[in-house]
């Protein structure tokens, strides 16, 4: 039976268990970074709505990771469960946008561009994207084969 691990914004999950699926239920304007290594079966999912991790955090809640510190921590955790830099595949999903969004509210676009910049700076190519547009996406990364299913309300799910 498949074990489903929900991943919430500001956090990540990694695993090399093929019976596991990582799920981002409702990404909104946030960005989801899905990573899978077909050679080792390691995979991970990181979701965030912030460019930078804020210093002010509530003691009662888990830390909320922005892209700046969250993405490196996520990649480190992915490598720790067996992922390898030279064979990984990265996909970006989310970054929903309102129609005619004024620059101040272009949260999704900023997150997507920054995620790409950080990954490319570390020589990690992005294999595919489902980003932008007026859609609230959800995704499932199946660690049995690395398939990524992406959908949004009222739309048919597609496999990336």
């Amino acid at each position, binding site marked *: 039976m498949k074990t489903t691990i929900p991943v*919430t*914004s*500001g956090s990540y999950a990694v695993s090399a268990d093929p019976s596991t699926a990582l799920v981002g*239920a*409702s*990404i*909104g*304007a*946030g960005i989801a970074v899905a990573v899978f290594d077909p050679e080792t079966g390691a995979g991970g999912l990181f979701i965030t*709505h*912030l*460019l*930078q991790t*804020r210093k*002010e*955090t*509530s003691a*009662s*809640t888990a830390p*909320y990771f*922005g892209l700046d510190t969250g993405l490196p921590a996520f990649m480190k955790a992915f490598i720790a469960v067996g992922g390898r830099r030279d064979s990984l595949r990265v996909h970006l999903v989310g970054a*929903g*946008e*309102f*129609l*005619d*969004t*004024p620059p*101040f*509210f272009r*949260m*999704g676009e900023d997150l997507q561009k920054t995620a790409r910049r950080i990954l490319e700076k570390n020589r990690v190519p992005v294999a595919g994207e489902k980003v932008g*547009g*007026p*859609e*609230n996406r959800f995704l499932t990364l199946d660690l049995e084969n690395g398939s990524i299913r992406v959908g*949004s*309300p*009222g*739309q048919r799910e597609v496999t990336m």
Partner: protein
Amino acid sequence: MDATALDTELDRIFDDLTAIPAFPKTVNYALRILDDPGSTTTQVGRVIRFDPALTANILKAANSAYFGLPRQVSSIETAIALLGTRQVREILIIAASRPYLDREIYGYGMRQHDLWAHSLGCAAISEIVARHSGFASSDLLFTSALLHDIGKYVMNEHVGIRAEEIQLQAGVDAMTFTEAEWRVLGTDHAVLGSEILRLWEFPRAIVRAVRNHHDPDLYIQDELSRLLAFSNILTVSLGFGVGLDGFRHRISPELSRKLKLTASGLAAIIQESFAEWQSLATLLA
């Protein structure tokens, strides 16, 4: 669609509007008691304890992490005694709203709990937004945020039947979802929602804010409407119970300036919103 067919469709929608079950009189009475400075919370308890369904919903809300009671409570009198007036007011409105909002709204692509999650999420975010902006009437904003999509209760079936047409209009002509609702049905869920709240005798400011929440030209005009629109934009952006219409709206280019928003302020609100979202888990179950 010709004008006669549109009129017939509108007649049906407004027939459904008048058939919507009335907002519980017990809650309206209890809210009036809370408005009286000389009242006590014991009086509120006496009024609502005879409504078992409402009492169960109030206890569920009171015991959620969101309201932060030091211990679980099983009697309405104890819950009210431990909570402040503002929290009792919020719990009353949450408990009374649930039957209208915690349902599948298939016309808008919302599953069983999506609209409830969206409404609660927006209400929780509105509290954070009110705190950050120093808005004094946070109770008005909270109620507006919780009930801003009540119009979907009535519009659901009408939108569902014409969903393809509405989505086609919205997609092909790059219309907002509310513009497509107008084109196909002759009204939209924001207008319908404000009409429901007017029939239920909610304060005019709330009726207006709900009417305005998707219209940038209107919501930019008054502070409550602006803050409601902003709370809703954040609720969608953070992915709290979002249907197929969620992102299909425009944002006023003036909104960030009028609300004096900064990037760091927005980041703080986002982080606090996710923390608050965790505390809503019991209410969403």
